[in-house]
């Protein structure tokens, strides 16, 4: 993974334009150093991991298998999805309604019942944030249909 990041970063660093104002190091100078540094560290880490597998492979395998990573990813992915949906709808329905939907979605996703109390808390929360940021602090939050 780190090697892929280093390679990708190096690839984009090689596409950095040059300027008549450029110094000796250049705009791409340190990015090249960083990508090569990361690639070097990634290789040593990979080597270290391989050696550990060779020496302690059987012992560590059982402990590594214990957490269900896919289940963890799926649960965390739900939270991220709520965030992405917020980004997609906030300019359509406006900040207040989008935030209300986020609060309700989060509450239900995390196991709260769909009852009057939950809905009321979401309404109060969205109203509080709207008042604080939009009214009190004067932040121009997205309105309905502001895309």
């Amino acid at each position, binding site marked *: 993974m780190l090697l892929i990041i280093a390679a990708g970063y190096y690839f*984009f660093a090689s596409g950095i*334009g040059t300027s008549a104002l450029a110094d000796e190091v*250049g*705009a791409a100078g340190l990015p090249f150093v960083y990508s090569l540094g*990361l690639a070097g560290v990634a290789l040593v880490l990979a080597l270290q991991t391989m050696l550990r597998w060779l020496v302690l492979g059987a012992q560590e395998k059982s402990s590594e298998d214990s957490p269900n990573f896919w289940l963890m990813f799926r649960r965390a992915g739900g939270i991220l999805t709520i*965030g992405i949906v917020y980004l997609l709808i906030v300019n359509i329905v406006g900040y207040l309604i989008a935030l209300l939907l986020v609060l309700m979605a*989060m*509450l239900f996703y995390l196991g709260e019942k769909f009852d009057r109390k939950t809905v009321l808390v979401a309404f109060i929360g969205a109203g509080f944030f709207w008042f604080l940021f939009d009214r009190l602090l004067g932040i121009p939050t997205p309105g309905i249909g502001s895309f």
Partner: protein
Amino acid sequence: MEAISVGFSLLISTPLIFVAIAGVAWGILGGALPGISPSIAMALLLPLTYGMDPVLAIVLLAATYVGAEYGGSIPAILINTPGTNAAAATVLDGYEMQRQGRGGEALGISLYSGVIGAFFGLAMLMLLTRPLAEVALAFTPMAYFALGLLGLSVIVSLSGESLLKGLAAALLGLMVATVGSDPISGVSRFTFGRPELLDGVAPILVMVGLFAVSELLRQASVSVWEKPKNTVMNLKFPNGKMRKRLFKPQLIGSIIGTIEGVIPGAGGTIAAFMSYNEARRWSRFKSEFGHGSPEGIAAPETANNTVAATALVPVLSFGIPGSNSAAILLGGLLVHGLLPGPRLFEENGDVIIGLYTGLLIAAISLFVIGMLILPVCLWLVNRPRAYLMAFIYALIFSGIYSIDNSLFDIALVLGAGAAGFLMRLVGFPFLPTVLGVVLGYLVESNYRRSLVLSGGDHAIFFNDPISLTLLIVAGLFIAGSLSTRAWLTYRNLQTKILENKV
């Protein structure tokens, strides 16, 4: 004596006390909301100050700065979200204490240390403005580069179990810091045609993503939520024994905060991390750091609150703003026809005395307002898990949007959160990444400026006395941390061998 009488007459003849208290309260609110940085909190007040008396206007802005620097620690401790960049170091042990049900104690220590830092910083500002100002002027690009390296040297001791993973994490942070316009030529790098990236990625976005969003993802990913046991709901101030223990880290934080504060551009973040690192180095309870150490809160909190006052030294002495907040304060001075420099002290002595008096009131009111609002904050974070997580998510969306009115920033925070979640799973430490993001620009821009000055000769870094000193100190830090690591590894290995024999 005359200054004291002028200050006293300002207190009784003007609403200076109320203005200072209002500034601190507003600052704490701004600092506690992720995304509303001290500079934004101050900028929001700037239009109000146009019609005000110059003394009151400057006090309002300065008190807001003091309040905001402290306010950043509240969400850092309670919800793992640094309200300001400088509060990132407080997260390390503050949130750990909160997880252990010691949130009230952590908040008490941060308030106590913050107030000490505010008083110490004010004393330094009053007593040492002129000599400290000379230090600020002596800093060359080479010295800034060396200062950045000194900050990065902390990575060696913040890398957790694997130094290699820490290095990789730091390199990732340095890579993020290269996004945006090149500091020398202005060529855009890694922006992929997005104008939002031309100014780079703000460190606060990376911090909120790595700390707060990834924590939300982690909590959502486990079926059973670890609810803190024996949660203390009351604010708990350190007792005599604890105060004695906190003295050393507070002293370290005060000294580092004073030095970093007067250097334009260094700022509270480097001061906080360096103080944390030094407090750990000199502590008798090293193993507690990272697992809920009171000293791990005291050192960075004292440092960043000291910086809030000493950062005014270059502003008042030379009109050099070392940070966005200082730039806004400078704007406040200029709006009222007050030109910073030595003549400011001679021609507008009443403004300076008023500022000092206002900062004194701000330091006192920091304590009073903190005592009033912190129990409420404690109650709020002890609500049921689903409610707490939903509200934190909503707060992140709202706070991050308010930085630049940009939804793209929220997308970046979500991306950083996902990256942070992956880093948690594979055991990569966050802090080196944060340091890389914070210091990357400082290191690169000053490294290249220095080479432009020297015509490409690296010897310039060793010819500048401040740069040389800082490089030697950084080298010693790294050597010390590496030897401590090596010794700990050797000891652990010995223990394992002994256990296997038994």
